[in-house]
């Protein structure tokens, strides 16, 4: 399955300290070819530090990282030839037009057939006029240009830091389509985002980082199934609310008329819950898996306690 594929990004005990402050510590992460990997965490958790270390803007204080099997420090220029990057804070060269900027990038990256044609295709998809000056662009327009720059050379790996910030919902949809196309071509995406519905919609796996430590790496499917689920029974007549509360792993039991809703955590026995409910007259059952956002909030809520 996913784990058997070639690791495009691999970190071994990656650590970075800013003086006495440890930004990330012992991060062990593998991102595989052809997947979209979401990197989640609150502000200051270490997402951007990890990305900057991978790009060799800053150096590991300990541990190491490889991309395409190449060392991120020693082979950084070779690696960067094969990746596309979109930073959170995007500064474009604003005395140029979009096309002038792309022509310059084409030279920096080495002449590639179809580079400008691909940029033009992306610009049309993202509804961006490449002949306009890059001066005074809105956040969303800058983001579009940033995406064109990151994608135009068809990189094997995309590293995107908050890629859809400032994009309107229609453009976010276009971005999702582009990411699916990238994955379909066997290319890899590593993205950090605060937009959890988006991560849930496009990512195959996510890594959750907290206080510089990688707390979990899991497929979105497993994460949303394994963490907890909501269960709602509709009874005809009496309902065993208090008995549900007494069961292991059953939390947040609430009743509204004939409906009883509860949250089942991982240690709960679904079989025990169903058997208890079956002693009464059940007219309907609904099982909801949580959204990634709920999991994320529950994850951090649990850790904070």
């Amino acid at each position, binding site marked *: 399955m996913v784990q058997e594929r070639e690791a495009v990004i691999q970190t071994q005990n990656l650590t970075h300290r800013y003086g006495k402050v440890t930004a990330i510590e012992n991060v062990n992460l593998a991102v595989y070819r052809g997947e979209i990997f979401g990197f989640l965490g609150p502000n200051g958790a270490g997402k951007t530090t990890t990305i900057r270390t991978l*790009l060799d803007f800053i150096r590991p204080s300990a541990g190491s990282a490889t991309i395409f099997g190449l060392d991120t420090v020693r082979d950084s220029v070779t690696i960067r030839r094969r990746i596309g990057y979109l930073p959170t804070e995007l*500064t474009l060269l604003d005395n140029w037009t979009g096309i002038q900027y792309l022509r310059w990038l084409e030279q920096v990256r080495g002449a590639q057939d179809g580079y400008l044609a691909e940029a033009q295709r992306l610009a049309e998809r993202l509804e961006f006029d490449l002949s306009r000056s890059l001066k005074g662009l809105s956040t969303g327009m800058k983001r579009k240009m940033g995406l064109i720059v990151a994608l135009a050379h068809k990189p094997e790996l995309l590293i995107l830091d908050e890629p859809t910030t400032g994009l309107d919902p229609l453009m976010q949809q276009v971005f999702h389509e582009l990411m699916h196309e990238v994955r379909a071509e066997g290319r890899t995406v590593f993205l950090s985002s605060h937009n959890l519905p988006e991560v849930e919609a496009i990512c195959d796996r996510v890594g959750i980082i907290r206080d510089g430590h990688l707390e979990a790496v899991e497929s979105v499917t497993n994460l949303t199934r394994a963490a907890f689920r909501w269960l709602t029974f509709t009874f005809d007549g009496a309902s065993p609310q208090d008995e549900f509360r007494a069961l292991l792993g059953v939390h947040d039991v609430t009743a509204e008329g004939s409906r009883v809703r509860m949250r089942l955590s991982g240690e709960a026995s679904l079989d025990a819950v169903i058997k208890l409910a079956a002693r009464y007259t059940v007219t309907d059952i609904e099982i909801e898996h949580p959204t990634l956002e709920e999991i994320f909030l529950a994850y951090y809520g649990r850790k904070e306690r």
Partner: protein
Amino acid sequence: MLAVFRKSFRDSRRTVWWLSVGFGLYLLLIMGFYPTIKSQAAEWQELIDSYPESILAMFYGGEVAEFDITEAGIYIQTQFGGYSVLILGAIVIVQAFNAFTNAERDHSLDMMLSLPVSRRAYLFGRVLNTALGMALVLGAWLITFLVSMLLWPEFDVSVGRLALSIVSAFLFLMVVAGYSYLLAVIVPSSRHFAGPIAYLLLIGSFLIYGFSAMVDALKPLQPFLINHYFNMGEVIRGGVQFGDWTVMISVAIILLALAGWLVDRKEFGV
């Protein structure tokens, strides 16, 4: 490196153009006075002789006993060259700090270093831009001097020596570039110290060198001050000062090589 240079040069070409035009016009104004000064040599010399030696030393930087303002070399050094290189030096410092500290602060360095460009190529692309930009402005100086020679035949100097005196100014600016880029690389990002230190070195060297002509206690410092090795007037009068050039070339190369070594070890700001 050439791609970085192209981008930097494109960004700074207006600055270079206006500096060239501005200095050209200013130099024409200065040179326009030269025939008058030359024709009233005796009166000017009387006026100059009435000045305290310390003031003359401050603005000439050479032996005060030789001070004759109607002599073309001394006129150029005192009325133009001596402080014009300070103005260009300030531009060099701005370019060095734009390349690192400011680029980190406005995040443009992120985009640049995410491209297949090594840190060293980035540094030397920017240095090349500074060098070419300054060479173009100094080229405008030379052209203006040549125009001045046509307009005012009283300004009669060897074109070769004039050109060499401008090369001297270029080397002076490359030393400033050397320590400015080095400081930009050494000083941790997002701090504001490096710029003021570079300006202090530039202006401080000028002032201390000037004072050292009057204060004996400061004389031992002279070999450590950049102004000791730069005097357009002396080149115009006596030809190339090979010792001075050797020192300036060596120092510039050493400082830039050190910057090139350290940039690979720099932590770029978040």
